[in-house]
């Protein structure tokens, strides 16, 4: 049952991703991403970790929301003199596409070769121990990640400030 739900959510995520890939508009693409990320949250939930699922929804969806807002605010109102920006990157697609396909096939091959892994999800009991890990042995990493976020924020702020000057 859970597996079916997982597949369903997975299908949803992939669907939204595909949708995003082929959306021309920025807002629409962002909305699709939001959908995909929400589905991912569900996936994570179904994978046995409601906490992470929740965080995914909060952080990433929140992040994406921010993105959308910021994009609305900052993106040039009108397209530049060069006209509407092209949807696809120009250039020779086949060569890079081949690289991507090879990469994908290789990853798939790796998966197939390692396919014997159990597909059983875990219980929610893990979530309870995550906190202990995060602020126990992983405290250092947590600190570092926090510092990183701090620096990123600093970048955002100082950048605005500087440009304001």
């Amino acid at each position, binding site marked *: 049952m859970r597996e079916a739900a997982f597949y369903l959510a997975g299908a949803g995520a992939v669907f939204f991703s595909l949708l995003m890939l082929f959306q021309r508009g920025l807002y629409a693409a962002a909305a699709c991403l939001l959908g995909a990320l929400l589905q991912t949250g569900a996936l994570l939930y179904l994978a046995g970790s409601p906490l992470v699922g929740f965080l995914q929804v909060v952080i990433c969806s929140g992040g994406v929301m921010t993105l959308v807002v910021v994009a609305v605010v900052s993106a040039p109102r009108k397209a530049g003199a060069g006209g509407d920006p092209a949807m696809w990157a120009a250039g020779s697609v086949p060569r890079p596409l081949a690289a991507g396909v090879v990469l994908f096939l*290789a*990853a798939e*091959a*790796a*998966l197939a*070769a*390692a396919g014997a*892994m159990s597909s059983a999800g875990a219980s929610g009991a893990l979530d309870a121990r995550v906190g202990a890990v995060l*602020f*126990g*042995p*992983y*405290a*250092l*990493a947590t600190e*570092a*990640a926090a*510092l*990183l976020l*701090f*620096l*990123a924020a*600093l*970048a955002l702020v*100082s*950048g605005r400030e*500087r440009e304001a000057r």
Partner: protein
Amino acid sequence: MREALAFFSAPLLWPQLTLASGLLCCLASGMSRGVTGAASRTLGVVSLLVALWMLLFTGRGPGGPLVSLDGLGAAWQILFNVGALPVFLSLDEDDEVPASLLLGVCLGAGLLAASASLLMVFIGLELLSLPAYLLVARLPSASAPPHEASVKYFFSGALASCLFLLGMAFHYASSGSLALAPAPGIMGAAGLALMGSAALFKLGAAPFHFWLPDVYESSAPALAGFLSTSVKSAALFLLMRLASLGPDSALSAALPWIGALTALYGSLLALRQVRLQRLFAYSSVSHAGIMVLGVGAWAAQGCDPAAAAPLFFYGLVYLCMSNGAFLFIRLSGLSQRGDAAGYGTMRAAPAALFAVLLLSLAGIPPTGGFLAKLLIFWEAVKAGLYLPVAVAALASLVGLGYYLGLIRDMYFDEPKWRSPETETGAVPVLLWVCAAGAALLGVLPWVLKSYLERLFL
């Protein structure tokens, strides 16, 4: 909680803690109005020096699931911190942000060096990269188109991060742990390859390097020097760590060839460059190739930490050479290759120092660049990698074309313009130090040798 505190009380991370405190102090100093950029720079230099000094007292061994410090990690921290000194000393920004970001990069590199887990590696890598993207945007060179380089840098780097993340996931899926330990099976190999490409990206090996010339060209010279030394040694360290996860993996087997071809590619491209900073960017690609070749040779011989001395020495010499070259660009104000014409007759001392650096970069004895290259080649020959060595040797021949070409322009041509008066202060002194380092490291490595031996154990 006690566990966490034990962690901080362990002496393994004292240098990193110093840097982090320095970083926080820097940020704090930004809050108060009266404090200038000079203070933050001083703070940065002091924390770097203190961190270096503390390296003497750091212990060795594991410190929990995330941290472990071995001789290699300790040694490489020297590279990160020393490599960062010139940029601090030659910065002339008036606020605290660049200094904070620089310290952030150093901290990230330091964490990378002391990590025992891929998670820590990832965080360290990001802590290293994100400030670097911002720095490129923040400290552009005079002629750079605004922000283009930083965006390119960001997207390339983010792709590499994601690849690293996927590799990490594969590694985890294969071994059930994020510890820096070999992962079994084909998934492990795939994960290693993915993470390896991220490391090669940071190092600027072909074909992962295309961002690099753009970024170095449009960064302030001192920053380019920093990126090509501290950041690059961190990437080198990462690559070594990854290679030691699978000394007989496909990644390790590919490294010598990637390195040799990168060296050749970088040299061939550098030959064509007109803008000096871009030229040195490609030269840096070429040198990265030699480093990758060295890692390949090191891996082929079983990744013995004590045998990493040639790589460390290369990093050390390259630190002097690259920082020196970019400092010279900063000092002389030359931007085009043609501007160098007759510089030797106009400004004798900087030109002579630059010539020494160029000879060292080209690997001409008796400079340090020669000995570093020799040691790498030697390791490769020991590993039986004759063909890659031959290709890399060819690359140094091509490299000679532009290094010598610059000397030729400086000394053999008549000056076409009047160079501005060179500034006084820290930059000329640093240039002297770098040139002296590049020259003397070729002659006096045994001074280092005993110290290195102690360090690596």
